[in-house]
Each structure stands twice: as structure tokens, then as C-alpha cells.
């Protein structure tokens, strides 16, 4: 009796150790899973913080350069500044105001037809490109898409479910603002067969505005390969 009692006690203790090991292992594994997720979050946070810091550094550089320009003698600065102001406006680097139209392209909100491919429900890059080209051809002098000014280096390209404009991804809805003769712009949109067709699939709406503000281009302008040609 004494012997078997002792053995069952040992058995119980061994089982206790086993249970401890089991629960510890389960806790460890769940901890491991959590830490990887936390680490991913940390990496993303780090990337964002670093980008914000870099932005700050670049903005400081800009401010420094501006103050340096102010310290230069006006006789040297003024003619250049005047030329630059004109060039800035032509290049789309300054914000402009005026009458124009606002075009909104929205992914389809209606339920899809039976057998309709989902790809028909999305606003595609060529829709936006076409609208921009139409407005430009109809006499718009300043165009922006989702706040990105349309300039000489602007690209509008498909990036999965989003559209990359000036290197930044945007999702539906896409708001195109164009400063120009409102009636001509509206007619160009209304008469275009492509816009008419796409309006059946996705939502495309446009209206004239008396007072539109189109932001200037704020991204980088770098011509690494293109150099001015000698005339």
C-alpha cells in the first residue's frame, strides 16, 4: 500500500511537470506569433517615421535656400525671380484659381449585371487619362487629379485597384479639376462617346464651377537624362 501510494504521488508530480511544460510551450508559441506581428508593425512605424524625418530635412533645405536668396542683393535676384515666376506658372508649380469644371469618376455603385466581369466595375487609368486629355484639348489651362497637378512629367498609370498619379497611389473616387472655359469643357465631356460609354459602367459626373482652385505641383522635378538642347 505504502509503495503504490508513493508511486502515484510521483506519477502526479510528473504529470504536473508535463502540464507545466505543455502550457508554457503554448504560451511561448503564442508569444512568438505575437512578436512577429509586433515586429512588422515596428518596421512599418520606423519606415514612416524615417520618411517623415527625411521630409522635414528636405523642407529645411528649401527654407534655407529661400532665406539665402533673400540675403542676396535685389539687383541680382529680381530679374531672375521675375523670369522664374513666369516659368513656375507655365510649369504648373503655382496654384491657380478660375472658372472650370469638376469631374468625379467613381467605381460602379450599382450591382453588377449577371455575368459582368468585375473589371468593368472599376475606374481604370485610361478613363482618367482620357478625361484629362479631353479637358486639355478643350482648352483647360490647369488640371489636377486628386490634388496632383498635371505637369509635363505627370504619369497616370494603373497600380492594381488604385491608380498611380505622379508616383502616388490614389483610390476611387478620382476628382479631376480643370480650370478653363467651362462651357467648352462640359461640351467636350458630354459629346465624347468613350465617356458616354464608360458612364454606363462606372459613375462619371461633371459640373461647371465658377471658382476652382487647382493646386500647384509639389513633387520633385528632376531631369536626370534630359538636358537642354543647344539651338
Amino acid at each position, binding site marked *: 500500500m505504502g509503495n*503504490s501510494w508513493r*508511486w*502515484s*504521488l*510521483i*506519477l*502526479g*508530480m*510528473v*504529470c*504536473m*511537470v*508535463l*502540464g*507545466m*511544460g*505543455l*502550457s*508554457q*510551450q503554448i*504560451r*511561448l*508559441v503564442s*508569444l*512568438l506569433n505575437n512578436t512577429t506581428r509586433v515586429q512588422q508593425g515596428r518596421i512599418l512605424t520606423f519606415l514612416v517615421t524615417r520618411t517623415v524625418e527625411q521630409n522635414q530635412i528636405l523642407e529645411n533645405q528649401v527654407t534655407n535656400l529661400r532665406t539665402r536668396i533673400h540675403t542676396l542683393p535685389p539687383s541680382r535676384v529680381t530679374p531672375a525671380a521675375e523670369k522664374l515666376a513666369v516659368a513656375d506658372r507655365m510649369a504648373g508649380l503655382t496654384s491657380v484659381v478660375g472658372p472650370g469644371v469638376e469631374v468625379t469618376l467613381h467605381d460602379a455603385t450599382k450591382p453588377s449585371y449577371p455575368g459582368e466581369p468585375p473589371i468593368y466595375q472599376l475606374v481604370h487609368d485610361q478613363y482618367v487619362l482620357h478625361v484629362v486629355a479631353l479637358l486639355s484639348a478643350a482648352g483647360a489651362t490647369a488640371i489636377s487629379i486628386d490634388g496632383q497637378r498635371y505637369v509635363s512629367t505627370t504619369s497616370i498609370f494603373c497600380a492594381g485597384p488604385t491608380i498611380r498619379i505622379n508616383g502616388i497611389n490614389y483610390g476611387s473616387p478620382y476628382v479631376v479639376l480643370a480650370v478653363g472655359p467651362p462651357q467648352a469643357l462640359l461640351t467636350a465631356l458630354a459629346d465624347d462617346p468613350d465617356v458616354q460609354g464608360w458612364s454606363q459602367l462606372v459613375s462619371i459626373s461633371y459640373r461647371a464651377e465658377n471658382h476652382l482652385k487647382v493646386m500647384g505641383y509639389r513633387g520633385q522635378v528632376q531631369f536626370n537624362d534630359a538636358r537642354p538642347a543647344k539651338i
Partner: protein
Amino acid sequence: MWIVVVGLLAGIVIGLAFPIIVPLAFAQYLSIALLAALDTVFGGARAGLEGKFVPATFVTGLLTNAVLAGLLTYIGNKLGVPLYYAALFAFGYRIFQNLGTIRHLLVDRWIKSRSKLHQSSL
């Protein structure tokens, strides 16, 4: 039998309530030691059903299996040979074999008890 359940539950509660968790470096050894222990547990259950359960054999088997499995994994890591997988395979195989035997024994016992019931009712 009850002491097994009580011990296991107590261990789980202690392990959950313990303020610290086993260091990360031990995770692999702990897992293989646990597998070895589980193998012994199933072996013990089978021996119990066969009426051949000896506590001393069970306890020593459990401890030596767990320790040796951890040790082999450690040596394998040092040698660059994944002995971990060998242990994983061996213990996993044995667990399933023991499970099969346990099932056989239980089904046999059930059938016997039913036939006995049938005879007594006749």
C-alpha cells in the same frame, strides 16, 4: 487515475500563472521533450489498458525520453544534423501506433462487454 488528472491540471494552471515564459532558445527543446513525454503518456495508457502498467517504468520512461530527446536535438544542432526531425518522426510514429493499439483494446473491451450482456440477458 485521478492523481494523473489532478497533477496535469495543477501543472497547466501553474504553467499559465507562472510570471515568466521559457526563454526562446529553449522552445525547440521543450517542444521535442513534450513530444517524447506525450509518447510515453500514450505508451502508459496502452500499458494500463493491457494491465501491464508499472509506475516506475512509466516515470523513468517519461523523464529519460524527454531529457534524451532534448539532448539529441541539442547535439544535432551543434553538429548541424537535424536530429530534431528524426525524433519528431520516431515519436510521432510511435504515438500513432500506440493510439491504434489503444483503440483496438477499447473496441475489444466494448465488444466483449456487449456479448457478455447479451449472454446474461438470454
